């Protein structure tokens, strides 16, 4: 038996190694390319683009972090510490903005906040006909859109921290005569700090790697610049240098997030305690809380969604719903299905080996698979492109290249669900099953499979939905005839044909909604 096991484990080991190699190799290749670029090019980029891009990227991330901090923590506090009619509705509804890809929200806001748009009209009604709003195509515009789109990350983490917090700390503080506000400041907030910081690091990671919103709002960040260099220049040397900076920046925030998430666990596992009591609101409190949440959710979801529905039923938009549109739908579905299946197949041996035989090699392979987190779409595309053209040029321009880019990019999201699912199947359970007389096949069918099935489904669905929404890698790598819904939204929206972009955008939002259920239930990190 032992010999058979060894024989079987080695091919699996090889498969895991190959998968990890597939993921880490493109990244390494781009980095190597960046470092081998002529010093003159480095010098030129260093004196012209890099300082501006770094400054833009970091300052956007910073301002979005501050706003999401305020929005996320305050909304979480309202729904966990107050009791008012409709509270449960708001608790669920506050994650809805995550169903809207950044490029959709960005294009809706470039209309809403745009020159002569509805919000400016409203403002002119108040401040006089000559009054002008700031342009959405700016630092401020990008900040607002990204903050509205990402604050649910902070909300979700803060909410769960507030729900799981041991109330006795606060009670001790209150019993010692400390005021409510001071308790919040000195006791509650410090306890939640790890969760909040983890949420913020996630938001920042998201902002740093976003392409959709910044490209439509014409705000120059590193990610956008990588795309522009790839599409505007005849060689990829500048793009790979910028990628190097981008990956380093993303890595910094990923490490921050992991560090604080690790710490945040420490606080939540202490002992048995009762859940916090909610403060019953009178009607003024109810009005205030409902008004506050309505404004935020209105801006982040309701108004944009209303606009999408409205535009989707306009005459121009209806005219585009022909066979060609159905082709975009089926392209999106097909690509996403392939990527999700590929992701599960590649993730499986990695997660399995890491949980069953946690040698340094297997754990290393698993960590390598998380590289996708620091590979923003354009960089993933660049990496795959460079690798395929050098090593297997025959595959360049095929669907496979695009799927590999998707898998690399979204595997972390899938692994988030695969890993815990596989950790559940301890050998003991299978041994019990065997000793009770089930054979190998039945044990697999009746014990192992039911245990891992849900984790697999969640992983598949998450990767499917993310692939469906993906923009930059699809733009750069799609083969002939493979335009997707996301591509159509971006192409139409970037020429300001707002109505024409609406049906595809609406469809993406609708299909994304079920994923939010999964998200709220467990895998909130994956949007």
């Amino acid at each position, binding site marked *: 038996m032992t010999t058979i096991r060894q024989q079987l484990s080695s091919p699996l080991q090889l498969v895991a190694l190959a998968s990890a190699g597939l993921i880490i190799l493109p990244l390494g290749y781009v980095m190597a390319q960046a470092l081998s670029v002529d010093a003159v090019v480095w010098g030129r980029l260093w004196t012209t683009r890099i300082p501006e891009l770094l400054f833009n990227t970091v300052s956007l991330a910073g301002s979005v972090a501050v706003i999401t901090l305020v929005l996320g923590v305050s909304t979480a506090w309202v729904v966990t510490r107050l009791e008012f009619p409709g509270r449960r509705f708001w608790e669920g509804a506050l994650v809805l903005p995550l169903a809207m890809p950044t490029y959709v929200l960005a294009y809706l806001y470039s209309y809403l906040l745009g020159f002569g748009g509805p919000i400016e009209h409203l403002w002119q009604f108040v401040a006089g006909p000559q009054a002008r709003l700031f342009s959405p195509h700016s630092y401020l515009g990008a900040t607002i859109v990204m903050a509205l789109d990402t604050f649910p990350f902070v909300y979700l983490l803060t909410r769960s921290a507030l729900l799981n917090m041991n109330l006795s700390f606060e009670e001790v503080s209150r019993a010692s005569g400390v005021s409510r506000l001071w308790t919040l400041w000195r006791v509650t907030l410090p306890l939640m700090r790890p969760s909040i910081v983890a949420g913020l690091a996630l938001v920042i990671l998201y902002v740093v790697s976003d392409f959709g919103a910044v490209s439509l709002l014409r705000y120059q960040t590193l990610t956008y610049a990588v795309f522009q260099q790839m599409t505007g220049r*005849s060689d990829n040397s500048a793009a790979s240098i910028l990628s190097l900076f981008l990956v380093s920046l993303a890595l910094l925030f990923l490490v921050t997030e992991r560090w604080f998430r690790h710490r945040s666990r420490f606080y939540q596992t202490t002992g048995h305690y009762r859940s916090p009591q909610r403060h019953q609101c009178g009607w003024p409190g109810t009005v205030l809380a409902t008004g506050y949440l309505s404004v935020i959710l209105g801006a982040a979801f309701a108004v944009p969604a209303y606009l999408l529905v409205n535009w989707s039923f306009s005459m121009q938009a209806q005219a585009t719903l022909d066979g060609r549109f159905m082709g975009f739908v089926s392209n999106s579905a097909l690509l996403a299905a392939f990527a999700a299946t590929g992701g599960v197949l590649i993730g499986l041996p990695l997660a399995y080996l890491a949980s069953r035989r946690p040698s340094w090699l297997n754990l290393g392979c698993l960590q390598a698979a998380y590289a996708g987190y620091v590979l923003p779409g354009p960089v993933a595309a660049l990496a795959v492109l460079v690798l395929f053209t050098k090593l297997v040029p025959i595959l360049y321009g095929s669907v*496979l290249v695009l799927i590999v880019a998707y898998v690399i990019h979204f595997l972390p999201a899938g692994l988030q669900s695969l890993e815990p699912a596989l950790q559940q199947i301890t*050998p003991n359970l*299978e041994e019990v099953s065997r000793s009770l007389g089930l054979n190998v096949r039945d044990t697999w069918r009746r014990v192992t499979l039911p245990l891992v099935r849900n984790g697999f489904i969640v992983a598949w669905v998450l990767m499917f939905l993310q692939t469906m929404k993906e923009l930059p890698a699809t733009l750069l790598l799609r083969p002939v005839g493979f335009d997707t819904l996301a591509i159509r939204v971006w192409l139409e929206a970037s*020429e300001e044909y707002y109505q024409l972009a609406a049906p595809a955008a609406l469809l993406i939002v609708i299909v994304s909604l079920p994923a939010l259920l999964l998200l709220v239930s467990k895998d909130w990190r994956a949007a």
Partner: protein
Amino acid sequence: MPYPCAASLAGRTVSLWLFVLTLVLLAGPDFPPSPTSAADKLIIYSGRAERLIKPVLDAFTAKTGIQVELLSSGTTELLNRLKAEGDRTPADIFITNDAGSLELARTAGLLRPLNMREIDRAIPQQYRAPDNSWVGLSGRFWIIVYNTTQVKPDQLRSLLDLADPKWKDKIAIPNSGSEYLQAGVSVIRATYGDERTKQFLVGLRDNGGNQVYQKSSQIVEAVAKGQVAIGIVNHYYVYRHLAMQPGAPIAVFMPDQQEGGMGSIMNVAGIGVIKQTKHLESAKLLVEFLVAQAGQKLFADLDKEYPLHSEVKADPALIERKSFRAAQVPLMRLAELREPTLTLIEQVGLR
């Protein structure tokens, strides 16, 4: 026998995984691009905006029954792609918004020379490669669009004047990745030299501020709304906007027509047949269709460009072609001028 099922699970996983991987690898390269058979479709890589080229291609399909598959993307991006795909490219045709890119494709050996009388007869020599590897289809001029309520035409003269600080925050410009900006800067460099061009770009960068646009249609839109007073775009975007919204307060100013001025910067959109095409006859038919009077008329009417066929008239709304001069830099030179132009643009830090 500590892990009986682990071994079995591992075995199954491996075999399933390898099976699917093999399947994907086998299927990958010949993956059908679309449900309908792609084999007899003409595959076109197009760097032109889809809505500018698709109606013309639809007319071709209607006339000949030849189906086309369109991949619309950036011109430079598609050129990079063609280079990377090399002999294996599925493309039959390359259509661009810029002669320089076509010439670069020709020098890279990607295009196939065409010996066709139809081309020689229809398109004047200066608008195509000597061996007809690429053929210009329509002419466009890089012009100033101005908002008629904010600017009088006598305030305008040369493109180079737009670097003047008086236009600060009043001008919208294309982003530096746009091929016609690159071509325009190349022409200015060839005419006035690097130093003068650099001053111009620095001024343009400062005046443009964050009014840097990815698409010309957005620039025209911004000028029409009065968000900015002027913009630099290709002429046809203005006329297309006016055709849809006849009352819009915008007009075209043809720059650099003053005494001793360089003349307006011209470029052509063009077509080249890919060397490896398996559909040479269909490809030739498309070229023939596009250079013939009917095809040229389509470009003129739909896209408001200047037809290159001498017997086809431009849309009457356009400024009469004979009434202004074009800059004297041959289109062929746009290719060799490209790389130093990009370096200059990057040095200045244009976005």
